[in-house]
């Protein structure tokens, strides 16, 4: 038998065999944008205090909220000022990131 598995697969399998592995978080554009929200909303959007949390909210909810803050149709103290810093695509990345946690 001369079959040789592609090198990629070989390396991948050898990796899985090493014990004690966890998932190394690939740092996505969504994570980069969203991490700056956590100073006010708590790590992963889990707010311990008076500021509303984001954790557990759906992508639709988050992108709707940010869009409404941005165009002023939803009143806010500071969120309007923040939301104006993000494009539609970035809002989608943020919404997808938090809803995936």
């Amino acid at each position, binding site marked *: 038998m001369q079959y040789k598995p592609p090198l*990629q697969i070989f390396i991948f399998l050898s990796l899985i065999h090493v014990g004690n592995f966890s998932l190394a*978080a690939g740092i996505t554009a969504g994570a980069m944008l969203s991490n700056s929200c956590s100073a*006010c909303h708590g790590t992963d959007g889990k707010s311990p*205090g008076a*500021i509303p949390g984001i954790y557990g909210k759906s992508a639709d909810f988050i992108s709707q909220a940010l869009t409404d803050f941005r165009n002023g149709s939803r009143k806010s*103290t*500071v969120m309007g000022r923040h939301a104006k810093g993000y494009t539609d695509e970035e809002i989608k990345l943020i919404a997808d990131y938090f809803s995936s946690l």
Partner: protein
Amino acid sequence: MNTLNRRKFIKLIGHTGAALTVMSALPSCSKTSARVVVVGGGFGGATCAKYLNKFDPNLSITLIEPALKFTTCPFSNAVLGGMRELSSITHGYGVHEKRGINIIHAMVTGIDASNKKVTLDTGKTINYDRLVLSPGIDFKWDAIEGMQASDALTIPHAWQGGNQTALLSNQLKNMRNGGVVVIAPPGNPFRCPPGPYERASLIAHYLKQHKPESKILILDAKEKFSKQPLFMQGWQQRYSGMIEWVSGNSGGRIERIDVKNRTLHSEMGEKYTADVINYIPPQKAGAIAHTAGLVNNDGWCPVNQRTFESTMQPDIYIIGDASIAGKMPKSGFAANSQGKVCAAAIVSAINGFKMPEPSYVNTCYSLVAPDYGISVAAVYRYNKDKGIYKVKGSGGVSPKDADAEFRKLEARYAAGWYDSITFDTFG
């Protein structure tokens, strides 16, 4: 798996164009991959250590900080205002330890950049692959005559948290009714641009209740200050006649302090005698950045504002107040935001993947009174020409014509922000 394997692996699968999809599910195993040493367990350093660990749990991370517990500057003005106890703004490193971050309580006294190691005041040396410094600020004591570092025990700056805050708080408590408190803020740039004016507000809040005949005089080195119209409006509404602000050009700029007689002498020859003096000296990057030769002529650290790697030494990163971060102010919020971007830059570099474009945020809440908050905010990005710049159209200050309900809500959110950022930094 060590980093080398992982890097090779990413390179290989990169050829298939599948790198991005596989990366997030990449198994990684070794307990001892690259060694990252973080110096300073304040807003920048504690955040960076936590997010390094979140992004890549296999890194060997060491956080070096002399204090067993960190007492914050944010909300220290509320302590002066009699609204908070110091214990409520003090945080430990227990959660970091639980995450597997190695905590060493010591002072870094030297950095050997060519051999990649730091020396501690205990005599021990520690090797690193990447080094992060977030040492905060140090003071330029020679900026005026008559003051030296040891005088801070009589004339507290309270611009670093903990004992200094307690000292100033005690002086205010012991002051007579009808006394004069002088706050003397420095020129730009300095830690927390709205801080001196929030301080004036909350000291006024305290004096109004306990020593209503007293006055606060702000002798400023500057011609204008952060959120000035909002502060002045608030002072008018809440503390009419109690706070006077003198700009630098109208006699506020101090050139000498007579510590014994508690007298300040301005550049223009005026003399001010006070019961309590809070002189806030001009600032520079924390001492270790100077020892290690990482500062420019102004005393701050130039960095690549995309990664926060020093432009003077490779593999050393400087974040927080000590760094020159484009349009971002020197705030705990900014240090936290930079800590995450820097962690992403380091993890990306070590593992050989592309770092996403950085995004930064800052919001500085200030309390004019316990139920009266104001804020300034912005979203920041990076480009090669401008460095870190404010996204056009984003940010700004609270509206001038806001009603009492709005101010109350911002005061509530200021406290909420404190809970969240200290959780995000230390929790």
